[in-house]
């Protein structure tokens, strides 16, 4: 049974002048615990696909099923709760909140989850930062961290709520190769140790080859 099922996904962006078809009839199944890479040239719809899987965007047509739940007709607050519980996001440019320190950034998903005391939240944050070897930076602001450290904090934020799916859009795109390799090994560790399903967009052929499966895109379509 797959954890992510996309069937017949179309995404068309309409502006006044033009109509862009970003995705065309996408069918994709991802198995639980799978580490999937998506590759393809710029503008072929990879981010659009990831946003649709992440329930941040709605497809123009087609259905999205995550964890056996059809997500097409969920309300805004149902979508929010679903994301909060089941999905972690890692972005190319980290998107840490600049006014919050590392601990508060990592805590973010837990803030929007009910039933956790401040103490429980703090414990989970500390535990995750320890696991990612970032405990010594817990009080630092994002501006005081290197890019690699920022991405590690972002990964900590993505997994602190124990989601079953992590979506990473070019997570190493802004990092040098050494830091990129560190982030990759971290993602592999999470995939192995926690069984987290990871869908990653990347331009790096070598990184992609280390994952379980590569899906290649061209012009909004899967070509292999």
């Amino acid at each position: 049974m797959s954890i992510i099922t996309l069937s017949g996904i179309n995404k068309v962006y309409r502006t006044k002048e033009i109509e862009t078809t970003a995705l065309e009839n996408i069918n994709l199944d991802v198995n639980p615990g799978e580490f999937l890479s998506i590759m393809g040239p710029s503008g072929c719809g990879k981010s659009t696909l990831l946003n649709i899987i992440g329930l941040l965007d709605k497809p123009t047509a087609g259905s999205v099923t995550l964890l056996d739940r059809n997500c097409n007709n969920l309300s805004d607050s149902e979508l929010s709760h679903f994301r909060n519980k089941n999905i972690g996001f890692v972005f190319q440019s980290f998107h840490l909140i600049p006014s919050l320190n590392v601990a508060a950034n990592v805590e973010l998903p837990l803030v929007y989850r009910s039933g956790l005391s401040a103490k429980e939240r703090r414990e989970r944050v500390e535990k995750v930062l320890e696991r990612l070897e970032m405990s010594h930076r817990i009080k630092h602001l994002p501006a005081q961290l290197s890019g690699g450290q920022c991405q590690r904090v972002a990964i900590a934020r993505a997994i602190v709520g124990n989601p079953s799916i992590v979506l990473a859009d070019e997570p190493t795109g802004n990092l040098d190769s050494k830091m990129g390799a560190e982030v990759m090994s971290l993602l592999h560790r999470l995939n192995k140790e926690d069984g987290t399903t990871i869908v990653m967009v990347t331009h790096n052929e070598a990184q992609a080859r280390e994952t379980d499966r590569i899906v290649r895109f061209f012009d909004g379509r899967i070509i292999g």
Partner: protein
Amino acid sequence: MKQKLIQLLYDLRHQPIIAWVTLIATAMSIFLIMVVVMMQRVQVVPFSPESCRDRLLLGIYIHAKSTEKSHNNNDGSAGLSYSAARTLYEDLDGVEHTSFITASTEKIDVRGTSGETFALNSRRVDSEFFMIFDHPLIAGRYFTADESASAIPVVIMAETAARKAFGTTDCIGETLSVDHFNYNVVGVVKDNSALAKTGSGELFIVTGPDDPHMDWGNSMNDVNIFGPVAAALLVKEGVDFQSIRDQVKARYAIIDTQLAPEEQETVYHEAPYDQETIATGLRGSNNTPDSSSGRIMRYCIYAILLIVPAINLSSMLHSRMRRRVSEIGVRRAYGCTRMRIITDIIAENFIITLIGGVIGLTLGIIFASTYSGLYEDMNSYGTNITPAMSAVLNWGTVFIAVGVCFILNLISAAIPAWQASRVNPVEAINAK
């Protein structure tokens, strides 16, 4: 809460101009509003010597005119004569104390042992006056009922006045020349604020039914109803003002009977009046007071004082939020609902408004309690018109200030918060 303070500090560092301007603008608008609120409240909140304002009713005017049948066309209204005041207000059910006094103070020349002649804001009062109005004694005693009934020439002075006349407040038994008549000083009380229009005075001269000063003589009719007298009623705890008014209204019939031979009758204008009516509703002695139009006017002023800064604060919050669009997108991705975005922004803004409010209220209280020029047009004859501290700083003021902050916050934050909640998460995350 802590996160919200952190955000404020962060904004102060990273967007210093907008953040500081927001804080200062909030403080200034709360300051302005609170000064207006306090100017109004000084007229109605109880403070010494009018500590009894919640239970105080005043009969200050009477209005009479020719009857329909009469060939004359007289119409007159003014203060009450002593006898009219007694007819209407003496011994009412549900009233604890009734005092007959001059409605306003007048400047009268006095001279004590210091030899200097100077004018004091003087009020003629009976012995009951000190049962209603709260004038702490420094020396001596209040008037006795006897002194008031038989017009024995005694006076009570306020502290500063006593010092000026005798060089000391220890002047009981001394003789004070009041308008060239000699009076015996029997008491010295604390100085009081002329903002208490009915209870204040620097010199209290004993008066009673036989005092010729309390009657204006026959100005209009044989039955003398006009004079300088006001009746102050201290209503018993829990007694409805309307029940007092009903009794007074019935007593107007007695005066009508007296006026009947002259083909005149009274016109009743809902007397006696409570403090809010006195402060905001009076429309002359020949009209029924109307607090509601004053109240509407006041609310309009408050609304303008709130909405104008709110528009500015709103646009400043909007530009502060524009810097945080990407943050909002990330929060949405991690499960923050639209509603939560709205409530968080409003709560965050409320903290700023409260901090601005504390600054503004503090400034307002300092200003209102020191700058007496603020109240000058309320009382042209008073000298000490600075209100007692308790009149401007009390829980009521604080409560109103918090309420004002809350409303200011709501109307300035609502639109930017709503806009922030509507952004598409994908576009927000990628916004720069």
